[in-house]
């Protein structure tokens, strides 16, 4: 062991040695964890009310005239017309841009610097996931309604106690491919992985977000074969090489989802599924094989897409590249050979 290793090890031992976890510390921590797990069953309504109060977007500010008469020493009667109140929208500076519409929010979105993906369909359906299984096994599905700048989601799939529950957020389309949101009624804890009070969503499909559409997979780096099939799991966004013209609204892009249960899904456009089937990975040859299922929208059953020489690079983002050695379906989306992982819970870049 080198001297720097010894110094590091000694210092770590000294720091960690100070971290004493007594019986009461452990019990307190365990109770805190259990309370959060149980909160969806017992604390839900109170939590929702409390959270809604905390997330109140409007703070009433009394007009000066009214303020001067309240509790005044002179005992004078308050004026008949105390003056207008002025409401301050504490999120007004954040929620800039256009109000949401079904057309504008139609597509797949990711939480900026987060692990949650959301899909809004124009038919009023939505889904939400944080495990890289937005298409195959999302954490939450439901319907949404828009009223002004409010989007209300009613869940119809997820944890059993969450069916029928709602969460509401204000939203604005602040830039092309960017949506900002503020929860006015967060989901009951445990019902939705979207826990932030407020945040920014980047549009993955169609790829209108300038950062995502401009993301380029580097040619150089420590590219290595995947360590195993599990490192392929997740939602991979193809590098956008053929963006739609700006005059047509921009966009393009596609997502390949590789699910742990052996299924894959390819989505394009505004999140429509264009292919689905089964995948296998040959570690010895570093070859990923996608075989279309009978219910694939665009390919015939058994059509193979073979991706050879699969390599990954981790730079803070997990990147993947391969050579398309067989494309039986022949669709354009199948020509993608460079992707980056949309971070999910448990992924190294999440």
């Amino acid at each position, binding site marked *: 062991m080198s001297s720097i290793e010894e110094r590091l090890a000694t*210092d770590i031992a*000294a*720091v960690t040695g100070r971290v004493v976890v007594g019986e009461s510390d*452990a019990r307190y921590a365990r109770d805190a964890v259990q309370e959060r797990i149980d909160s969806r069953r017992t604390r839900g309504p109170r939590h929702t009310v409390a959270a809604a109060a905390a997330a109140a977007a409007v703070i009433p500010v009394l007009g000066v005239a009214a303020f001067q008469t309240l509790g005044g020493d002179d005992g004078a009667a308050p004026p008949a017309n105390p003056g207008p109140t002025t409401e301050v929208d504490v999120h007004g500076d954040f929620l800039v841009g256009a109000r949401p519409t079904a057309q504008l929010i139609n597509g797949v979105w990711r939480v900026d*610097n987060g692990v949650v993906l959301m899909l809004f369909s124009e038919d009023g359906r939505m889904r939400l996931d944080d*495990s890289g299984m937005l298409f195959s096994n999302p954490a939450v599905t439901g319907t949404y309604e828009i009223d002004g700048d409010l989007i209300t989601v009613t869940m119809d799939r997820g944890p059993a106690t969450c069916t029928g529950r709602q969460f509401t957020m204000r939203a604005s389309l602040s830039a092309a491919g960017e949506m900002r949101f503020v929860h006015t009624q967060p989901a009951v804890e445990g019902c939705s992985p979207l826990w932030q009070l407020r945040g920014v969503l980047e549009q993955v499909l169609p790829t209108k977000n300038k950062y995502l559409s401009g*993301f380029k997979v580097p040619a150089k780096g420590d590219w290595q074969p995947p360590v195993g099939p599990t490192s392929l799991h997740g939602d991979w966004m193809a590098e956008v090489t053929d963006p739609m013209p700006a005059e047509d609204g921009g966009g393009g892009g596609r997502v390949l989802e590789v699910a742990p249960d052996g299924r894959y899904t390819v989505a394009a456009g505004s999140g429509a599924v264009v292919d689905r089937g089964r995948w296998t990975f040959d570690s010895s040859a570093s070859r990923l094989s996608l075989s279309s299922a009978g219910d694939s929208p665009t390919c015939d059953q058994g059509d193979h897409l073979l991706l050879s020489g699969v390599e990954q690079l*981790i730079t*803070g983002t997990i990147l993947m590249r391969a050579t398309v050695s067989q494309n039986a379906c022949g669709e354009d989306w199948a020509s993608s050979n460079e992707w980056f992982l949309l971070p999910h819970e*448990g992924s190294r870049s999440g």
Partner: protein
Amino acid sequence: MGTRPAEWRDAAMDAEHFDVLFRRHYAALLRLGVVMLGSREAAEDAVQDAFVALHRHWSSLDDPEAAEAYLRSAVLNRCRSWVRRQVTQRTPRPLMLVHEHQESPEDTMVGRDEVGSVVALMRTLARRQREVLACRYVLELSVAETGRLLQISEGSVKAHTHRGLQALQQRIEMS
């Protein structure tokens, strides 16, 4: 892709089992969090959150032995997120981590030769380097175990270890 045995697939995350996992791993994970964040409160929050996440994702684990790796990964993820949240100004860079170095309150009070000074410098390393060093020297994982946890090759583990220690040495000399 592993196939989970029927009894495991059907098993609920019962309280007793969860208790066992908690008591077995909590302290070590807390120490990992303290090293990564320099704050016990932040570390407690990250570790408790990791256990809640484990409870939620229990059914997706391949086998019980994966729980420990899941927890370690979840704690590291939350440490990463915590560091990011401390940054007050940033240029949005999707999918890429932005500048992460943020001194913890404890760090600012640590003198050069004081206990914790080397650990404080470790927190200023690039994310991957500090995570590899944490795995090797806090969790005391082997190269192979570190690679599996962080899903990088053994060659990368060695490279990050070497560069991380080199960078640490330089920081000690400069401080």
